[in-house]
């Protein structure tokens, strides 16, 4: 587990002072320090999740770099979605689910009992696997979040938020003539972009995406991926995906989960060309399921 010699992102940093004592005490899960990555505001420390007596996630520690895309990959049931749902506490809604460890955003513990989960979810938005627009008009879909959080002072403000959110989601041009028609009438890809617009409208800092393209065709997928790449400029994005190619295409950082454990995390390029761990290697090359 000596990552020092193998951190490809920073060979020069290592060669500069080979005898320097590592500043951080060596922990079991060693974090990659990628000088190119943005600083992390979202950090997790030894997060474990239990469903009743069954432990679903084991001591996951990872830093999520700001304003970039981080991808969680791994076989089904590896805990990546569970972990994602811990971040905006969607697991709270599941009976018998218990989370231990720390998840902090700007140093603030998200599991602090004093923290209001409603406020948290306004800061950390979520996009789901299946496009799930409300059975309401396109406008109402996007306006709903700002409305319940009281973000728009008047009707004009609200309209502006809706328009800019739809624009950011790259959907405005396609739907501007039918804002008041039901959102369920859109195509699958458009519906998913509507869901993204709906999440953006609240002005989150982090957007969680749980396999956002799994129900879409390749073209719609490409459009969403392009959108994710654009959104990266303003938002911290975490995406869980079954498609390794998708993780490779859209993310800057990739984390590999297996059997509830975080096996490896690092710059996407490195994970997909030269993973350190054999399990990662076997998974991404298609040797284990």
């Amino acid at each position: 587990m000596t990552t020092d010699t193998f951190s490809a992102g920073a060979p020069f940093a290592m060669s500069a002072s080979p005898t320097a004592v590592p500043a951080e005490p060596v922990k079991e899960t060693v974090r990659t320090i990628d000088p190119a990555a943005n600083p992390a505001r979202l950090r997790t420390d030894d997060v474990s999740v239990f469903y009743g007596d069954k432990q679903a996630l084991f001591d996951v520690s990872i830093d999520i770099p700001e304003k970039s895309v981080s991808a969680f990959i791994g076989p089904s049931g590896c805990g990546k979605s569970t972990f994602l749902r811990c971040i905006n506490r969607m697991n709270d809604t599941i009976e018998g689910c218990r989370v231990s460890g720390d998840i902090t955003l700007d140093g603030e513990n998200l599991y602090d009992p004093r923290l209001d989960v409603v406020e948290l979810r306004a800061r950390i938005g979520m996009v789901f696997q299946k496009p799930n627009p409300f059975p309401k008009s396109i406008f109402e879909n996007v306006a709903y979040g700002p409305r319940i959080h009281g973000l728009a002072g008047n009707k004009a403000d609200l309209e502006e938020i809706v328009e800019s959110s739809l624009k950011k989601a790259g959907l405005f041009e396609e739907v501007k003539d039918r804002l008041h028609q039901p959102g369920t009438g859109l195509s699958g890809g458009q519906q998913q972009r509507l869901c993204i617009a709906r999440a953006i409208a609240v002005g989150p800092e982090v957007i969680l995406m749980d396999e956002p393209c799994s129900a879409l065709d390749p073209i719609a997928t490409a459009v969403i991926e392009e959108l994710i790449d654009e959104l990266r400029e303003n938002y911290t994005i975490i995406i869980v995906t079954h498609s390794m190619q998708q993780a490779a295409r859209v993310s800057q950082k990739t984390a590999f989960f297996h059997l509830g454990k975080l096996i490896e995390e690092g710059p996407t390029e490195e994970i997909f060309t030269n993973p350190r761990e054999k399990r990662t290697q076997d998974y991404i090359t298609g040797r284990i399921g």
Partner: protein
Amino acid sequence: MNSGHIVTAYNDELTELARAITEMGGLVEKALNNAVEALVRADNELAMATVAADKKIDAMQHLIDEQAVSIIARRQPVATDLRLVIASIHVANDLERIGDMAKSTARRSTQFEGLTMSVQFKNGMRHMGELAQRQVKLAIDAFAAKDKDMAVEVFERDTDVDALYVSLFRELLTYMMEDPRNITMCTHLLFCGKNLERVGDHATNIAEQAYFLATGKSLVSDIEDLRREKLVP
């Protein structure tokens, strides 16, 4: 170690690609060997056979390129698989170049007819040929075995080939100065020596690919660290 892909056909394709590289390596080794033999023994027939055999090497490179492109298009390889495919393309290219060097050397040897070649001329050539052949063999083995230490060895030994070429150059220069009638012959030999020196360079390239295949890193940028590591302990 290799538990194999879930998709057997993919596994087969990768194995086939690696096998093709080894086969091509064998062909190239043989061509190089024949070329040096033809040169040293002034064996015209062998030389012509060697020139003719190069066609097969070219075809082989073509085949490997096609296989690699097909794997990339259909399987989207990542990690070691990706490295194998990319490295295979490079290695096939280098092998083809080595094949060309062998062909060029063999063709040149057919032009020695009627020219006198003293025995001492040959010694240097034979020595250099052996060294280049050994480098090529070692590089191909390193690639096949994904052995980074072997690859480093090839890389480090390239200086021997270069040094031998420099001494060969001086030697032939001396012969030419001794007797101007030697000039034609020695110039031919000098070109052949240059070819062998280029073979060494290509062997080094193959070794670099072997190192990349084994570690995912560039040998050229790592070599300083590796050298220091060897010195420090």
